[in-house]
């Protein structure tokens, strides 16, 4: 189309951003494979690495499950009810996106540390600092907004009149929710859970403050980088990103994300 100059320009500018993202990741992976393929193989055979990847996925999964249990009900309330102070609640939900990661770490340490508000009374039952629960708490803090916002969008996209009709047919509010609204919003909830999980896996700043050990992979990468430099940490980074992208693409395909379905 000769008259679509503006669109061509827009596409070109968009390609810069896309190229920046793709190039950055692709270059790392390709550099690793072409320059030091044996290093990658060695890393892939290192059980320490796999243990840390497994720990990362496991803690992220726990964080997502907790976010799901407590976040989905909140998302439903935000989608269906108007009340005074709703804007404030929505602001609070978004706060974790805004909090600098190391600040989140310090804050969580204050609360969940051995002398903290929650950490102290629980000290004889659960240890958070430098322990698995600390990792989960840090991941939960940074990842909830993704789940809640996506689920809220999902519930909003379901016409409340469907619930109304279901209730006239004899369904209680709860039954209308799990028979009608939840199934219809399920895709959004799943997408939210995927993003939330991914965000949990990606976290470093908050986790490293509250729990340097046991080492999740992002921490391991940082530790190797500081101790042995780029060439020692890059194979781990490549391995982790391959694992992440595989999971992300798989789940995204299952959830069947297409923007115009979502909007």
């Amino acid at each position: 189309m000769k008259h679509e100059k503006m669109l061509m320009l827009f596409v070109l500018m968009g390609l810069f951003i896309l190229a920046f993202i793709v190039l950055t990741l692709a270059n790392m992976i390709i550099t690793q494979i072409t320059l030091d393929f044996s290093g990658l193989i060695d890393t892939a055979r290192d059980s320490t690495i796999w243990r840390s990847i497994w720990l990362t996925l496991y803690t992220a999964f726990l964080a997502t499950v907790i976010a799901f249990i407590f976040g989905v009900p909140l998302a439903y309330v935000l989608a269906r009810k108007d009340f005074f102070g709703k804007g404030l609640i929505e602001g609070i939900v978004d706060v974790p996106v805004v909090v600098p990661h190391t600040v989140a770490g310090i804050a969580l340490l204050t609360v969940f540390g051995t002398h903290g508000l929650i950490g102290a009374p629980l000290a004889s039952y659960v240890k958070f600092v430098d322990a698995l629960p600390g990792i989960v708490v840090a991941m939960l803090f940074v990842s909830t907004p993704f789940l809640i916002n996506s689920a809220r969008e999902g519930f909003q996209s379901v016409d409340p009149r469907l619930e109304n009709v279901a209730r006239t047919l004899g369904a209680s509010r709860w039954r209308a929710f799990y028979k009608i609204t939840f199934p219809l919003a399920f895709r959004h909830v799943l997408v939210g859970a995927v993003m939330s999980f991914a965000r949990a896996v990606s976290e470093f700043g908050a986790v490293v403050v509250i729990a340097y050990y046991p080492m999740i992979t992002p921490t391991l990468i940082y530790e190797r980088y500081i101790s042995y430099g780029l060439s020692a940490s890059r194979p781990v980074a490549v391995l982790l990103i391959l694992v992440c992208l595989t999971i992300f693409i798989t789940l995204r395909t299952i959830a069947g994300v297409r923007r115009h379905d979502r909007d």
Partner: protein
Amino acid sequence: MIEIKELNRNWREFSLTNINLDIKEGEYFVVLGPTGAGKTLLLELIAGFHHPDRGEIWIDDENVTSLPPEERGIGFVYQDYSLFPHLTVGENIEFGLRLKEISESDMRRRTKEIGDLLNISHLFHRSPRTLSGGEQQKVALARAIVIEPSVLLLDEPLSALDARTRDVLREELRKIHREAEITTVHVTHDQTEAMFLADRIGVLMGGEIAQVGTPGEIFNAPINERVAEFVGVENIIEGVIESNEDGVTVISINGHRIEAVSTYSVGDRVRVCLRPEDVTLAFSRERSSARNSFKGTITQVVPLGALTRVRVDCGFPLMALVTKRSVEDLGLMEGDEVIASFKAIAVHLIR
């Protein structure tokens, strides 16, 4: 059957003020009103999706004001069908039955019956998305009545359909009402629909019930000018009562005299309401029972399909709605002199 007492509710830009209605067992009650009058809100209050700010709702001699929708025994049909998109047509219809404790065979029988009644049994395995508007609305109806509710609430059920389908479904609604005898409240802005279906009509304007009556009362004897305008009384002419003998009233309009039947007294200022379809046009004065006939000039001829709207200036403006055939047979044209006639009983007077 349904008693609404002093109902008040403000919600977003809608409000309902002091609504009182008494809908009888088995009645087909139509709430007629313009867009934004609060018709849907009223229906949703009866259903229990909203709670009133004040007032009470009684169904079957039970105060249901604080009951949740699932305990009110109602069937509800929305304008946009509101079928559950993730279920098949059959599952939609069975949804309510599965929540009751009835046997599988009973359920089969009742869904089959309703499917046959509405002629949708062949659609049971389809997804609602693949159905036409008319089919979807039939399914929504089936879903609502299969649970045998004591009250059926219909929210503009025909408005989203095209003219042809609307005609078909209108007759379907009447048939269902006759066979099942469910007390029905149907809200609409469409007068034809109201006249065709209603046992009684409540006119809702600006959040208040302006008039309740049979279709004949509403359309021929509207209570005030707003209702008159809304129900299509295109001739509303101011005048003064000149005489009234035994109910035969003469109203003077700019020196012209109109006869009507009323109880107004001499000197009262009134408005003469006359439906345009009650005005006949001819070139010569015929002997007929029409007591009022005026010579006038045609100022506009507007073809509207089978009917034609003719504006006549008789010293006062008069709108007539006549058939296309009479316009053609008589050869009515703008500028022609005609005799416009109407019966005294076709005239309705309001203040």
